């Protein structure tokens, strides 16, 4: 890959890799590390990509694999640096923050499936290919994820409503 092609690909897909890794790892620092690893693998890759879609699918697959590898690593499972503890993305809009928080509260495999399906617009089969899982398994993950999100977000709405006190009407 030429330097110009790599620079363009890095600027185009950097955010995509970061989002995939963030959904898998729930940590901005780890997501940046995964992004660097995946981009360097793209730079060293000798593969002839047929189209932009091919590049994107390759990147998504490698990003998922690298994130999983980091997720499984012994060091990450047993220690979390103090400065990185509970460090999450901050969104200004409370509604968006609530949705993202609900998704991030799911298990990593559900989060990844939801991200690839709803944000990247992959089909169930493509999501399954990127995650190296069966199509029926991914369908089940998506169903469960949707059910949990529905439950979580409706509970959140109920909590908000219970906090709100209706002002008394003066006769």
């Amino acid at each position, binding site marked *: 890959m030429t330097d110009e092609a790599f620079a363009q690909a*890095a600027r185009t897909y950097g955010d995509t890799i970061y989002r995939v890794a963030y959904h898998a790892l729930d940590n901005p620092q780890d997501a*940046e590390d995964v992004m*660097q690893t995946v981009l360097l693998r793209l*730079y060293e890759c000798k593969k002839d990509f047929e189209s932009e879609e091919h590049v994107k699918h390759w990147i998504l697959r490698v990003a998922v694999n690298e994130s999983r590898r980091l997720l499984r690593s012994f060091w990450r499972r047993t220690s979390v640096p103090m400065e990185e503890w509970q460090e999450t993305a901050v969104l200004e809009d409370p509604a*968006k923050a609530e949705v993202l928080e609900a998704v991030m509260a799911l298990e990593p495999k559900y989060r990844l499936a939801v991200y690839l399906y709803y944000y990247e617009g992959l089909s169930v089969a493509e999501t399954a290919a990127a995650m190296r899982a069966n199509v029926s398994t991914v369908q089940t993950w998506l169903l469960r994820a949707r059910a949990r999100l*529905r439950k979580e977000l409706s509970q959140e709405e109920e909590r908000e409503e219970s906090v709100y006190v209706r002002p008394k009407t003066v006769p």
Partner: protein
Amino acid sequence: MFDPKLYREACRELSAPEDKIEEIIAMTEKTNKKHFRPLRTALIAAAAVAMMVMGVSAANPEAAQEFWLTLRNAVQVDQYRMDLTTEEGEKVWGDTQNVIEES
């Protein structure tokens, strides 16, 4: 209720730090540049020649000895070399020792 549109908007706000991406691009550009180092090249060439000479002299010491002797003679004889002009005006050259012996 889960709203996919709201989720997509939330995801759009998640982005990698630009400086990090630029840092990775700069890193790959730096590692790809090939620097020409003349001193290192000369040293490698000298080492290769030395090894070749050693190899040849180890394989055929007599030929190597003869080569060095020829080289030494060429250097030594050149010190006594002189140009002569004959009576006919013809220019000849030879080492002084031979000219002296012949005369």
